[in-house]
């Protein structure tokens, strides 16, 4: 039965993360962008919230909750609202744990999940995007070939978050039988972690190029053993991207709306001019529209329904709208919006990422 209200549990999660976002992430947002780093106190504080451990089974030391894409969407929106790069950093281990939970073998779960159920933040990540104009997540240029009983991986990945510190990297690669993913340790022979990527936005987030040159991994390193349907995982990343865009869009909207109510021109607040007020009303409509599309796609994932169409539409829509919203938010501030004293130029740079970079988070 159609229902638009989050459950009590989801609402509690949302509120908790909203406060965290406001009190812990946002105060560091500007500095983290300027200095290209995540302040050391943030990951431990985020770890205490249990974002990663929550859905891990008690048998591996987790909290025993169930993975829910919808809860993931609510969480990502709130964290991205505080700061996109900061939020993606603390969520990065889920790029490993969520796929393991979804399709990992028992052996893989036993091997890797306890590492992400401890008392301290442990970095984990996934290598998806490739530096190619026609990069196709479902059919990457990175190849995995059979070699005896093992696999040999070759290819170049980019924008891999936290690769330098990750306990394990889930590398997506094309096998002769279709898309696969492989649990690769960063220290494995043939793995080179390149220099930190220099991006236009999302600067707080450490991302790296990862080069795989004849990396040999055992058959047991393939996610799901003999292989698994990874399409729902790709969809879950698209939905995560849409949800993060909602957070950034809302951040830009709130910032410009409050500014417009304060800023006076011709004897009244500029928000009292329809030219400004209508920019804001359109932002409000689109933020809700983006959010509902993301919710619907996440709901389909939780139901186990095919969600590629919905996830792709939600992601595309969100990527388009967040850019317009951030651009208009900057316009509302006029010249001040262009100055780094204000956050809107940062939101605009962050917003630009959504249509381009994929696979930075998963629900």
């Amino acid at each position, binding site marked *: 039965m159609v229902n638009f209200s*989050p459950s009590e549990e989801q609402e509690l999660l949302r509120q908790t993360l909203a406060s965290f976002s406001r009190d812990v992430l946002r105060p560091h947002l500007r500095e983290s962008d300027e200095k290209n780093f995540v302040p050391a106190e943030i990951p431990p504080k985020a770890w205490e919230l249990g974002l990663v451990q929550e859905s891990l089974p008690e048998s591996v030391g987790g909290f025993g909750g169930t993975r829910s894409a919808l809860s993931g969407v609510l969480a990502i929106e709130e964290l991205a609202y505080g700061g996109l790069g900061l939020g993606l950093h603390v969520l990065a281990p889920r790029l490993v744990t969520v796929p393991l939970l979804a399709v990992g073998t028992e052996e893989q779960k036993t091997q890797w999940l306890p590492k992400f159920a401890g008392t301290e933040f442990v970095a984990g990540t996934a290598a998806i995007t490739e530096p190619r104009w026609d990069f196709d997540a479902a059919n990457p240029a990175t190849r995995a070939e059979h070699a005896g009983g093992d696999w040999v991986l070759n290819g170049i990945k980019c924008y891999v978050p936290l690769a330098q510190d990750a306990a394990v990297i889930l590398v997506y690669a094309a096998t002769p039988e279709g898309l696969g993913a492989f649990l690769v340790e960063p220290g494995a022979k043939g793995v080179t972690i390149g220099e930190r990527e220099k991006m236009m936005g999302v600067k707080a987030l450490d991302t790296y190029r990862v080069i795989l040159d004849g990396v040999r991994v055992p058959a047991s390193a393939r996610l799901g053993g003999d292989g698994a349907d990874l399409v729902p995982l790709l969809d879950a990343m698209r939905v995560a991207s849409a949800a993060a865009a909602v957070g950034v869009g809302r951040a830009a909207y709130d910032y410009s709306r409050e500014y417009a109510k304060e800023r006076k021109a011709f004897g009244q607040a500029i928000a009292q001019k329809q030219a400004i007020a209508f920019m804001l009303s359109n932002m409000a409509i689109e933020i809700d529209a983006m959010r*509902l599309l993301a919710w619907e796609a996440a709901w389909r994932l939780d139901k186990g329904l095919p969600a590629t169409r*919905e996830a792709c539409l939600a992601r*595309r829509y969100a990527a388009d709208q967040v850019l317009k919203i951030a651009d208009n938010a900057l316009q509302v501030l006029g010249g001040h919006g262009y100055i780094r004293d204000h956050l809107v130029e940062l939101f605009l740079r962050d917003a630009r990422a959504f249509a381009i970079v994929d696979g930075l988070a998963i629900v």
Partner: protein
Amino acid sequence: MIDFELSDQTRNARKMTHMVAEQMMRPISRHCDENEHEKPWDFINAMWNVSKSTSMTGSSNDGKSKEAKEEKKAEGRTLAMVMAVEELCWGDVGLYLSIPNPGLGGAAVAAAGTPEQKERFLARFKGDKPTWGAMAITEPSAGSDSAAIQATARREGDHWVLNGTKIFCTSGLMAAEKSEGFVVVWASLDRSAGRGGIRAFVVDAGTPGMYVTKVEEKLGIRASDTATIVLEDCKVPLDNILGSAEIPKEKSSQGFKGVMATFDATRPIVAASALGVARAALDFTRDTLKEHGIEVRYGAPPQTLTVLERDFMEMEAQVQAARLLTWRAAWMIDQGIKNNLEASMCKAKAGLVVTWVTQKAVELLGPLGYSREHLVEKWMRDAKISDIYEGTQQINQLIIARRILGYSSEALR
């Protein structure tokens, strides 16, 4: 718990409504567009018989919320109606508007009438002959600014005497002259009291002094009549006023706001009608592309998509965004949550989306789109009104802006 699963009941109702749209509306859609003032009586009579047994024809709000509480397992009645209206308007929005029912006038009676008035005015919709209700607000020099209406009502003994000219009255001809229906006329008791002086009066069909002087010729929705109604010393009984006749001493717009609240309930319905037209265009475009071997590759790398695929995906996403906003606004009504902001949001979004999507469909289909042999060009013409009636795009933006900024109508004009 966030959920997008339709109940079986809603799903079945939707299927049945779709059959009506496909089998009863589509076949006469073009004919009714090209023969503007001809009434499709077979369709009207058939719909009258259907609507007496079910509530699927979008007869707005008859003020019964009891049902909603009883149907725990199904969508509430507003949400169910929104879905039914989308289906019917997928068939033909002009025909949907011409379906005999209490209409907006009925919505006003349901929202602001006493139990006695509801009984007196709404019982007629259970009779044997097709009956229409209509609402008369707009005047030649007062559209969105409905507080500026000039029609007057003055008391004379045991009657109200109405004078004025009303335009753009949907189903006005059918409600005022061609059935035993009624027209809800907005008029001012005291023009010096501004909004506070405006009241709605129910004028029964055939009341002396009420004339239909013109039926408009329009760009689209031609199956629906849009009438000019003139009131010349039109006398209506005292108890035909909706709400109190007293004008508050201090300047207050409470009464006016009460009537305006009707729009919170009707805007999601209008948004749903826009969705139906948009989906018609979307479905036709998808089918035509499929016939030519073109299927949209959703998961493909964005840089490798064709312009056609990108456009189509954008159209689909826009329609679904508008649909979810509309469902939410309707769901809020069923939950008893105030939805003034969300009702305007869905109406503004759906009005814009249907206008754009149908124009885009004409473009994508090229000569097929522009040809009157197909319905796409008609849908484009039908679509435009969605961004105008029940509050224009701009009026809805204004309402949204005031809400999100916490501004009164004085602070943001």
